[in-house]
């Protein structure tokens, strides 16, 4: 008998997806041009994420438990369904590669300067692949521990920064550059659009009322937490200085002191954060690999799973420095995000038409 996930599990998975991906760089993207107003763009981006979540939920409901791409094949012309599926898959794959590349870059530049990047990303991907291979039920079990780490770390960051927080440093909230604000909003929307994974998760969740509310509350809470922490960073470091930081939360972690005995605890922070990265990446790998298996209409074999992991590892290593990562991120924001949105809207349109046709 197939094991189904509960609403708690759904909450955990969505919360981790929202945090695991861009957590380290999102505040820097949001505030670089906009200062404290960047927080508003973060909240607006989360709003866009919420719309995508609702869209994915409705689409998944219409699919009624069958694999989403199989459903698209039934309601859309075959070539169009394939293109839509590929657009969604490429979004997921590039998102995954970017997440892994960001984390590897951070580990490499901050903690393990002399260790080869291929080793850092290799061991990381091997274990993530191992977890993803166990299936969504086991990923969710792992995610429970990651969620505990996440809550602990957030609390640690907030409590550690609060004594140094001065609201005056985070003010004023002025919109100086409208274009930059819109640009940031889209960037943040792109990050939160990963809730699209709901398309692949929902068929494994018990069909209950309020599934959407649980998923949405996970997204909203994540956005609020992230905004609070970014605002905290503004108040601690000041708007001007914060805008020069790339790993803003890392700097926030650096100033935490655990009594007179342990200082520079950012290493512990990053290390504990790994559980969150692990959970989020394994959910992403699960969705990416299973979606590809749906596209080629074959079961996801172990061999295929590991071949894809190897491919992601190669891509992650190819992005050997921050310059290349940012370049890919640019393409991602300008092309793949829109392709995915277009595909999703098209699928929704056909699903609606299909419903109307069946009503007639």
């Amino acid at each position: 008998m197939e094991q189904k996930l509960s609403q708690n599990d759904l909450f955990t998975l969505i919360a981790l997806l929202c945090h695991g991906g861009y957590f380290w760089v999102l505040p820097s993207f949001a505030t670089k041009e906009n200062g404290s107003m960047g927080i508003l763009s973060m909240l607006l981006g989360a709003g866009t994420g919420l719309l995508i979540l609702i869209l994915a939920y409705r689409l998944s409901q219409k699919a009624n438990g069958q694999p989403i791409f199989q459903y698209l094949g039934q309601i859309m012309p075959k070539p169009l369904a394939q293109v839509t599926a590929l657009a969604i898959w490429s979004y997921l794959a590039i998102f995954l590669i970017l997440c892994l590349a960001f984390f590897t870059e951070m580990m490499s530049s901050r903690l393990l300067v002399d260790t080869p990047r291929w080793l850092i990303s290799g061991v990381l991907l091997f274990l993530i692949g191992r977890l993803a291979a166990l299936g969504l039920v086991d990923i969710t079990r792992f995610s429970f521990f990651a969620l505990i780490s996440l809550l602990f770390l957030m609390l640690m960051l907030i409590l550690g920064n609060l004594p140094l927080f001065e609201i005056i440093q985070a003010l004023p909230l002025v919109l100086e550059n409208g274009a930059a604000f819109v640009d940031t909003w889209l960037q943040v929307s792109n990050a939160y659009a990963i809730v699209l994974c709901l398309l692949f998760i929902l068929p494994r969740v018990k069909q209950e009322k309020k599934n959407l509310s649980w998923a949405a509350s996970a997204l909203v809470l994540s956005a609020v937490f992230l905004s609070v922490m970014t605002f905290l960073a503004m108040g601690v470091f000041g708007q001007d200085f914060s805008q020069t930081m790339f790993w803003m939360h890392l700097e926030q972690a650096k100033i935490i002191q655990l009594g007179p005995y342990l200082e520079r605890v950012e290493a512990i922070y990053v290390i504990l954060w790994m559980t969150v990265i692990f959970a989020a990446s394994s959910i992403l790998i699960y969705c990416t690999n299973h979606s590809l298996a749906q596209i080629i209409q074959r079961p996801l074999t172990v061999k295929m799973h590991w071949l894809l992991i190897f491919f992601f590892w190669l891509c992650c290593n190819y992005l050997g420095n921050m310059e290349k990562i940012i370049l890919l991120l640019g393409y991602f924001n300008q092309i793949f995000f829109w392709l995915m949105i277009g595909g999703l809207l098209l699928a929704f349109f056909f699903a609606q038409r299909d419903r109307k046709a069946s009503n007639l």
Partner: protein
Amino acid sequence: MQKVRKADLKAVTSSEKNAEISGVLTQDIAHLQKLFERCSDFVCREFQIGSSKAAIFYFDGMVKTETVNDEILRSLILETRMAKSEQTEKNRLTDFLEQHALTVGEIERVDTWAEALAALYVGDTLLLLDGCEEAFVLNSKGFPQRSVDKAGNEKVLRGPEEAFNETLRVNTALIRKRVKSYNLKMESLTLGVNTQTKVVLAYLEDVANPSIVAEAKKRLESLQGVKGIMESSGIEQMIEDNPQSVFPQIQYSERPDRVCQAMTEGRIAILVDGSPNVLIIPALLVQLLQSPDDYYNRAKAGTFMRFIRYIGIAVALLFPSLYVAITSYHPEMLPLNLLLSIAAAREGVPFPAFVEALLMALAFELLREASLRMPSAIGNTIGIVGALVIGEAAVSANLVAPQMIVVVSLTAIGSFTLPSIEASYPVRLLRFPLMILAAILGLYGVMLGVIAILIHLIKLKSFGYPYLAPLAPLSVSGAKDMFIRRSRKDVRQKVLFQQSPQYSVGRSLDGTKIIPE
């Protein structure tokens, strides 16, 4: 008397299995003597009952001599002399013997050699009569056995002290003594072609999940072709879900109170003849980390001890690797004074922290192994003297820093807080790969190691139940008793394992290994 059931006899060789007793005494004696030729402990005693010839068979040392002499031979030879001649006529002899002559408590008639031999092997006496195609199985068990003793490996400060021993019936009695209910079922199986080991599956019918009982029976029955089963550990390794894992998926206990408590929680006990360790299935990680003492003491004290134990496990598993990682890769995390003190102490030590830690951890494991193998009187001395002398000498010779002695000692003490030996092995074993990872990748490596262990634990199941339950998957009611020792009322009423177990699947129809959804 324990019935010699046909189902228990599958392990007897096929030639004997269906062969029936001929009823011609000389032939039957010859058959048995051929089977047991060169068996010096096999006894065959022929005698006369009235006009009929008879013989008894048994293994010397397996039977109670008094029973054989007084209740079997004396009865058969003397009592039948006083009987009327028509009572000892061949056609009425068997009934007469059963009703009037034999004074042993339990008698059974069998008609195949397989049943007869199975009885002989467990210490019963076999009576054959000329002209009778049935054999009497007379209960005369009297093999040597240890008396009920104190538990040696699972000591508690309060609570009962008696422990199981090697005799199956003593062990079942110790359980029956505590669980006075007709719901306590004890199903018997015979395993091992050569050893014919009796195994009893004990459970509370009203609490145990029938699917676990069925699965346990299925797994045990699959062992019937095994040549020999000497001890419960042999069974344990053959029926657990993942025998390659370092984590035990079956709990064992030598304490009847612990086994009975487990049964009231819906778990199943497997008792093996010849083993003082009773297996308990399913076993979750949290259960392996709990001690009966937690419940015999007051709730607050139990909670405190539990926390101390969890800290002990964390220290035993992680302390050396964290020391290696922080001193080698992240010294900036330490306060300046501590850092300077470590640096000063390590001055002159020719090895990196990793080699130091590895040497000391290995030395400690050597001492532990040596003290186990030595006679108990000097084993402790070896441990203490070895630790003191080697530690002191290693520091004096500048082979290791004094801090490393502290780290290794704390690690050792931490590993001793584990309530069961089987739970301490994974901690001892996994410490080494974690140290290697710490030496290669610092804290990142340690965390990778911890995550790898976590992934393995998440995958692990014990008879279809997630090993990390009730934490993952989270069950709030189940997890209540995990960290904080609940009141007796709450704890005693908890019944786990009511959900259906989930067994691993992972192959498509054509047999290809697939990733589960």
